């Protein structure tokens, strides 16, 4: 598979033409070779654009690439949750994987909590693979790729990027490097926390009232930044109406990149540009216009519900 093949795939994918199962097998093989070599804390250089949850909203991802600029001209860190919830997880993930293979140093893919066998079986990606390919083969190939995805990134040794947040089991970046990440996301422990935890106005560490998952406060953030000589944390994982939210005096920022989430929340999305000096600039964008999306007009048809 050469560069011209890849470019052709990328162009086709952007028109939402799906590759064959055999082609996907080849693509996954290539992306796997790249991802397994990556560290748990990927090193990234500025300027860079940080992207939050995309959730299978493929036409909004195309809009995002217009707003942020196409790779390789723009350097990207995607903070995970590529799949589930939206109608086009397959197209979304495959386009990102193809871009990763084509421009491995300009596209960084971080694993989100939806990049998991268990979660995708409940929230849409598995069903979509079955519907579009008639079997679970593509889903299986993709979940093997999920296991290879990096857990975090650090921009210019100063900005920590992760899908969910911190873990009480992680003091330093070396602790993250020590994780054996090539597995299904566990239900507890440091790897789970990185993908699932949320910042909250609490003191230190607390447990979610649901009985699983950590909430971490300003103190925990400050401690982690201090120990690791970092400026701030960029994370995703939580829907924000305004597309981004800064907390704890700007020491942590949530970036949300799925506009009109689930096609009905009416929220805007954003991407965060970090320039050479790591100054933040948020580019806010709305959902792709109806004319560019085939799934438009999904207004619920009248039904004789009981």
């Amino acid at each position: 598979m050469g560069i011209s093949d890849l470019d052709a795939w990328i162009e086709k994918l952007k028109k939402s033409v799906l590759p064959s199962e055999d082609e996907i097998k080849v693509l996954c093989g290539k992306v796997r070779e790249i991802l397994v070599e990556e560290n748990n804390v990927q090193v990234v250089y500025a300027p860079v654009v940080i992207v939050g949850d995309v959730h299978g909203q493929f036409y909004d991802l195309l809009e995002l690439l217009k707003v942020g600029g196409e790779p390789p001209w723009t350097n990207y860190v995607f903070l995970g949750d590529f799949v589930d919830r939206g109608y086009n997880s397959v197209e979304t993930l495959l386009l990102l994987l193809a871009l990763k293979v084509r421009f491995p140093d300009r596209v960084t893919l971080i694993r989100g909590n939806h990049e998991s066998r268990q979660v995708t079986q409940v929230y849409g990606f598995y069903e979509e693979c079955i519907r579009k390919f008639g079997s679970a083969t593509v889903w299986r190939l993709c979940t093997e790729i999920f296991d290879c995805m990096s857990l975090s990134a650090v921009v210019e040794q100063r900005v920590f990027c992760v899908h969910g947040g911190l873990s009480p089991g992680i003091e330093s970046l070396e602790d993250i490097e020590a994780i054996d990440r090539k597995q299904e996301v566990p239900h507890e422990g440091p790897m789970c926390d990185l993908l699932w935890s949320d910042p909250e106005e609490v003191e230190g560490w607390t447990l979610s009232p649901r009985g699983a998952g950590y909430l971490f406060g300003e103190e925990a953030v400050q401690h982690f930044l201090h120990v690791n000589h970092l400026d701030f944390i960029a994370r995703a994982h939580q829907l924000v109406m305004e597309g981004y939210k800064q907390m704890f005096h700007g020491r942590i920022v949530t970036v949300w990149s799925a506009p009109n989430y689930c096609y009905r929340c009416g929220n805007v999305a954003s991407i965060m540009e970090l320039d050479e000096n790591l100054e933040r600039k948020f580019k806010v964008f709305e959902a792709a216009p109806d004319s560019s999306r085939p799934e438009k007009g999904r207004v619920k048809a009248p039904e004789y519900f009981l």
Partner: protein
Amino acid sequence: MSWPKHEVQTPPYYLHSEGKGIDIDKWSIIVTEGPILSSNEIESWQSQLALKLPTMAFGQNTLSFHYNRERKFYFSTFDALQTVSHCSSWLRVKPAALWENRQANVDLFDANYDWTFSTTYGGTWLMQGEETPLSATESCLDWSLLRREDIPLLFFKELTLYEDELDDQGISSLSVRLRVMSSFFYVLCRFWLRVDDVHFRLYDTRIYHQWNSNVVMKEYSEQEASFQQVSEMGVDSRWFTNSDFMQKVLPLTKKTATRYYLTP
């Protein structure tokens, strides 16, 4: 399928622009819709309600029923959230069992509210009703009429009042569906909870009124079961995300009827 002829003359009606409501018989039914609350609105609601809000609170979504120009009942997100309990729920997500040993070292989030956002809300009523308990097999609704798909449907609306993904461990949602037919209106206000691999809960309020009658009927039911109970019934897991299907299989735990009389 053939039905007996439904001898009702459709009364004159007027549809509001952009699907914002309908005037029919002596009723005016009005819809308002908007996006989820902004971060500032969330903060303000949270302090008013002493509750951490569900991730999607559609604060502008309302459905109001006016009779002879007087508001009789309506559905509002704020009112619904006011009914969420301020006691923590006994329910825990599936992975909680694995977290038990961690709980000793860490404080539990001060959860002086029910994280499942369970609510029995079935509208805010501005008239007095007479409530009676019903057995599982009883109903105050005319099901033979409700099931008929040959009667013209004049107006349909579905609104989500709030929804939470429970941190990707299930769903909690409160929604209202309305259909206005040539001879009656029918509303289903549904609270739906699924905690993955743990629990199902369905609290339904059904409201029914036939033109020219002086009564609005409200039927409320509670259905609930653990995942294990449902699995033992042999229900295929692909139905677990479909509340309309699960409504047919979940065991009933409570049922009541309330009659509201309209004065001409």
